[in-house]
Structure formats: C-alpha cells, structure tokens
C-alpha cells in the first residue's frame, strides 16, 4: 500500500533520530572568501580599464595633432596600471587559510593603507604631472602667449590655484569611485570582523 507523504516524513525522521549534527566552526570562512573574491575581481577590472583608457586618449590626442601629449598621458596611465598591479599583488600575499579573522584584519588594513597612499599620490601627482600636460596642450597657442604676457606673480598664482584645484578633483574623484566600487564590500568585511570579535568574547 502506498504511504502518505506525511507518514514518510514522520517515520523517516523517527528512524533518523540519531543523525549527526553539523559541526559549527569557521563560521565566516566562506562568507569572507566570497567578499574578498569580489574585491579581487573588481580591483582587477578596475585596474585593467586603465589600458583601454590609455589607448583611447593616445588616439584622441593624435587626432588633435598632439602626439607628444597623447604619449605622455598614455605612459602615465600605463605606469599607474603597473603600480596598481604591484599593490594588488601585495594584497594577494596574505594567506586566507591560516586564520580568517587575522586574514581579514590584515586585508582591510592593507586596503586602507593602499587607499591612503593613492590619496597622497593624487594630492601631489596631478599638479606635478598634469600641469606639464597643460603646457604641452597650449604650447604655441594664443592662450600660452597670453599667459606669458601676464605678471610673474599672477602666473604663479594661476599655477598654484590650478594645482590645488587639480589635487582636489583628483582626491574627490578617487574617494567617490572607491566608495562606489569598494565601500559596501569593505563595510561588510568590517561587520564580519566585528561579529567575529563578539563571538570570540562569548568564547564560542
């Protein structure tokens, strides 16, 4: 005679009363791995996007008959790509299998130190590296002759103000893009660290 599903369920679990309970351990290993993988893939693509950007800008400046400027900007972007790559390789050196908690702490701290490094770089880099690009762009134009005709103090003032504005734009764009791409992921890692600390306190 065919058994009802209700009976199969009831009798089946009665005969399975002794089945083993799962062991609760490494609660955050999988979750952490997923978030770190997401950060890794985002940063990889984020960095790779610099290469097509360099090629496109090089092409645009060739089209505008500013080959030297195109080469200069393209080279800067390629150098930035290799610098990022080196930073990301350093992040991969942490070993996730040893201790998830320590791994996450180290990972977040390394990520934050990379961010601090780029904020400093963007504060100094754009004025030093982009002002020559302006010079290359406006060289031989009426804008440049007009600039040269200005009082030397006024020239310095324009350069300083441009440098400060460029730094501000650089830092602001970096912070916004970092927040959009990595903000939530970093926040999730910090939540996990907080939970793990609470679990440790409870001596689980």
């Amino acid at each position, binding site marked *: *005679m*065919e*058994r009802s*599903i*209700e009976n*199969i*369920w009831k*009798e*089946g*679990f009665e*005969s*399975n009363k002794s*089945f083993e*309970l*799962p*062991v*609760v*351990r*490494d*609660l955050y290993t*999988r*979750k952490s791995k*997923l978030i770190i993988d997401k950060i890794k893939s985002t940063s990889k693509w984020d960095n790779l996007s610099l290469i097509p950007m360099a090629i496109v800008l090089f092409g645009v400046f060739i089209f505008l008959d500013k080959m030297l400027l195109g080469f200069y900007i393209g080279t800067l972007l390629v150098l930035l790509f290799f610098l990022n790559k080196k930073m990301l390789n350093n992040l991969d050196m942490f070993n996730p299998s040893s201790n998830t908690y320590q791994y996450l702490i180290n990972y977040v701290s390394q990520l934050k130190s990379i961010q601090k490094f780029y904020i400093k770089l963007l504060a100094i880099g754009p004025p030093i590296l982009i002002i020559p690009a302006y010079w290359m762009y406006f060289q031989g134009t009426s804008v440049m002759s007009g600039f040269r005709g200005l009082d030397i103090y006024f020239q310095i003032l324009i350069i300083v103000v441009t440098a400060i504005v460029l730094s501000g734009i650089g830092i602001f764009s970096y912070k916004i893009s970092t927040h959009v791409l990595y903000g939530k992921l970093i926040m999730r890692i910090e939540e996990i660290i907080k*939970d793990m600390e609470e*679990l440790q306190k*409870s*001596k*689980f």
Partner: protein
Amino acid sequence: MSKDFYTQFILPYAGIIIKICRAYTDNEEDFQDYYQEVCLQLWKSRENFKGDSKWSTWVYRISLNISLSLLKKDKKVNKKSVELQNLATVVPQESNPFNDESLKLLYLAIKQLPELDRAIILLYLEENSYQEIAEIIGLLPNNIGVKITRIKKKLKILLDGKIY
C-alpha cells in the same frame, strides 16, 4: 554566540534547521554552510525576537529566509561558474544523509518544487498550523490550504509509484 545560547536555543531546534537546509542544498558542503549561517543569524537576531510568537516559529522563519537568500546568491555564483565550464561536466553531488529510502525520494521530489512551495510543504509536514505557516511565509491563511493541496498533488505525481 555563547555555548549556553547554542545549547538552549539552537540545539533543541536543530532538527528544524537541518530539515530546511537539506531541502535547499544539494551537497554536504553547502548544507554545512547553510546550517552554520542559520545558527549565526539566529544568534545575531536574538535581540529582535520579541516573544510575540514561539521560538520555533522564529527558527523556521530565520532558517527559511537564510536558505532562500543563500540559494539566490548560489544561483548567481553557479550561473557564472557554469558559463565557464562545459555544461556536461557539471553534475550535482547529491548527499544521502537519510537511512530511509522513501524519505530520500520525498526530499528529492521536494527539491524539484519551486522555492516557496518547498517552504510551505516543509512547514506543513512539520505539523505547523495554517495560521503558523501563513505567519512564517507571509501569506493569508486561507490561501495556505489551497496551496498545500496543489503541492501535494505535484508531489504525488513526482513520486508516483516510487514510494511504498
């Protein structure tokens, strides 16, 4: 999570968590992950439990919510990884934790149901009232009876002649 919390509030209800997690996973590794995540969320959400319903109702609710959300995430991840592999090489690893062959077949049939139907039939088989099922799932109690009849019919078709 203190050991007291685990012993007092999770261990006596582990059966509920296990039965639900089994219905939404296809292998032992995923099952362990789902079980652990449910335990963790029960611990994290302990202060949100106001005592308006039974603790077991809370356990059902958390177990189902977590299983459904993990399943959704896994589907996204699997979709990406399947795209990278040859489809023919992707074979689901079925774990067989049950001694009873009929129970195993019933589980296999339940896993073929849509996610919400799976939740409803699990709650029904666990002898929850229509009112309790409605509370956990968030549907009207009147609809639950009709849904259960339909799901049982589907299961009967899936299991036709396979269990005795």
